[in-house]
């Protein structure tokens, strides 16, 4: 990973969010040789090459994104590892899971190595590749899962594509379970989703948009939960969009099924109404659904039924969104706005700040079997943000190659001031 490294850096002032859900005053945090060397009173008197004044800021473990598209290899016009990991650092993220939906698809160790080498040489944050669960993501033949795992894939998944039928899905799960691989599935029944691209609800009816019914998700969630129960695989349901999915997830947990889940930040903040003016930015998949769904998803995060909030970052070139809505490509350039949109939920009283930060740190870390803590001896992956300061996403301020951010026309709260990855500065707003 590139980035400037100081031998030692002391961060003083502000509030520490230590990853366990509590916030305390920060007397001092000393980073040396890529690790947190001292924290609290032992750091107060320590001297360092450089100091960072974090007054008014929150110091949190670096955010972890379970669902991010870096567009490399293959889609250079939409973004690349250098541009999109820098955007991630601007958003406070220090680790991103790279979707297998690249070109070629990440279904072999060769592609996994290519991604890891790209991340090592040009990346600003840690990149954890997710392998394709089927060859070419065609949903028909198993990928070389053992080889993918050896090459460094942290899980296998289907990206945003479906698996042809339940028999193949069952075999995918049984095979992944053999190697202890987590399967990350975006649940969508392809036959029910058909040619749709918007929530099958009031807005689609009025605008004559082709709908994806809620049952396209819930039928797939139910099928996946039953198959996970039978095969014993660790299942992670990715990018939920329906309130009923949250209920089904909670019930499955009670029955003892090993299942975790995430939701994209835009699903917590927007509804089908965002499409009312044919705004193609909000053509996302799964689609934005009703206000009741949005509230149920927020409640799912609040209650801990949903473990993680993801960016589902999908940078595009402008041509991909410059067409009548049905002809545009789905996805938002979202990773730089996740924290800010979350802080708006906090400001509206829908979510506690500690819960938001947990869903961006310890929650996704546990899905990956990792830690996200600010503690002595841990790697110095952290983010310092000023919740009271604002910024406006725009062509000038966005770092991502994708300029179709969910909010472009107004100020957002929460400014990331410093992102450290293994002690190196991945993002700073200071010169």
């Amino acid at each position: 990973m590139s980035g400037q490294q100081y031998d030692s850096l002391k961060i003083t002032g502000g509030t520490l969010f230590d990853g366990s859900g509590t916030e305390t005053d920060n007397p001092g945090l000393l980073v040396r040789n890529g690790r947190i060397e001292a924290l609290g009173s032992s750091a107060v008197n320590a001297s360092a090459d450089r100091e960072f004044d974090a007054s008014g800021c929150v110091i949190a473990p670096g955010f972890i994104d379970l669902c991010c598209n870096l567009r490399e290899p293959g889609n250079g016009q939409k973004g690349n590892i250098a541009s999109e990991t820098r955007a991630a650092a601007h958003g406070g993220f220090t680790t991103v899971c790279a979707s297998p939906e690249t070109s070629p698809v990440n279904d072999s160790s060769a592609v996994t190595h290519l991604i890891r080498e790209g991340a090592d040489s040009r990346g600003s944050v840690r990149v954890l590749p997710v392998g394709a669960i089927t060859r070419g993501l065609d949903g028909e033949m198993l990928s070389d899962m053992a080889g993918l795992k050896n090459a460094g894939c942290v899980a296998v998944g289907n990206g945003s594509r479906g698996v042809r039928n339940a028999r193949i899905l069952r075999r995918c799960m049984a095979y992944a379970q053999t190697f202890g691989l987590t399967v990350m599935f975006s649940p969508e029944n392809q036959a029910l989703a058909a040619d749709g691209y918007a929530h099958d609800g009031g807005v689609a009816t009025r605008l004559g948009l082709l709908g994806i019914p809620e049952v396209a998700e819930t039928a797939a969630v139910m099928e996946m939960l039953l198959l996970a129960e039978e095969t014993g695989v660790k299942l992670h349901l990715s990018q939920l969009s329906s309130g009923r999915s949250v209920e089904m997830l909670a019930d499955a947990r009670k029955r003892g099924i090993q299942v975790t889940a995430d939701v994209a930040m835009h699903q917590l903040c927007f509804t089908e109404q965002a499409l009312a003016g044919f705004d193609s930015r909000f053509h996302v998949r799964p689609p934005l659904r009703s206000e009741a769904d949005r509230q149920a998803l927020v409640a799912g995060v609040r209650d801990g039924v949903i473990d993680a909030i993801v960016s589902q970052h999908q940078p595009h070139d402008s041509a991909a969104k410059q067409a009548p809505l049905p002809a545009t490509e789905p996805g938002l350039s979202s990773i730089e706005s996740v924290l800010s949109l979350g802080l708006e939920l906090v400001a509206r009283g829908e979510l506690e700040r500690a819960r938001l930060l947990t869903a961006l740190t310890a929650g996704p870390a546990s899905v990956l079997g990792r830690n996200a803590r600010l503690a002595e001896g841990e790697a110095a992956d952290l983010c310092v943000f000023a919740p009271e300061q604002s910024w406006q996403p725009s062509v000038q301020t966005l770092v991502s190659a994708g300029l179709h951010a969910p909010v472009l026309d107004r100020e957002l709260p929460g400014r990331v001031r410093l992102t450290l990855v293994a002690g190196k500065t991945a993002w700073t707003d200071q010169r």
Partner: protein
Amino acid sequence: MTANDPSPNHLQLTRDGQLRHFLTLDGLGCELLTDILDTADSFIEVGERRIKKVPLLRGRTVVNLFFESSTRTRSTFELAAKRLSADVLNLDINTSATSKGESLSDTLLNLEAMASDMFVVRHSQSGAPHFIAESVTPGVAIINAGDGRHAHPTQAMLDMLTIRQHKGSFEGLKVAIVGDVLHSRVARSQIRALNVLGAEEVRVIAPGTLLPRGVEDLGCTVEYDMARGMRDLDVVIMLRLQKERMEGALLPSEREFYRLYGLNQDKLALAKPDCIVMHPGPINRGVEIESAVADGPQSVILNQVTNGIAIRMAVMSMAMGGQVAERQQKHSDHEGARA
């Protein structure tokens, strides 16, 4: 534009509330719709003159951009533009330009460069005219001639003109729309227009597979049984049924559809005796309507076609007026800023 502004009016109206594009009936009020009908009424007289021309669009270039083929709608738009003395260019684009790799935006920018003043757009994708008006050529007046399943506002307005001619007003009217509402841009625009103009009741009559989810929220009641649905009707509007509907498991057969939802003389007899029969065309005789009804005394289908020219003249002249007013406004703002 903000993501949460559902009203398209920032796009289709000028600051003074004049029409500058005609994209959808959503957001347009009773006064404006009545204004369109009254203006169309005044143009009907033009069609009866020996020289059927007025100079309202003289020197203006109107381009008929049909990305989806249509003989009738295009012909009436062409005639309407010519009666307004505009220069008319007809382009049937289908998929040829895009198959050559040119994007929709590039095609339109090229046409704009030819000094076009108005695009009449028919497109298979919902929202295409919005996209063009908002992002591609905002300085060209856009008239929606039918987009995907979304809207067909000139068709709905010519239907309203036809209803008003026969019924005098919309007050107390009970109107049914029968058939494939799911795929119909015409039905969506008609439901909107009838609600705004004050019809007492709008019913849709169709099987569940041909109704969009939550259709009631558009402002209508749902009736599955046609015999019940025909009661007390003042107007019945039949929709065209595409043959492809059998393939997607939406309907079992044309025969069953006709038996249940086809309009024949027996079913028509259940409505009010002066109930008028309408159809946006082209009609499928024996699929959604019996010939004896389509050609019968209660049918006003051919009046609809005649009214189509007058409505399109009205909308084109009004949108051009708004567009020109806005250009002048911008120009004087600019001059004001310089002074």
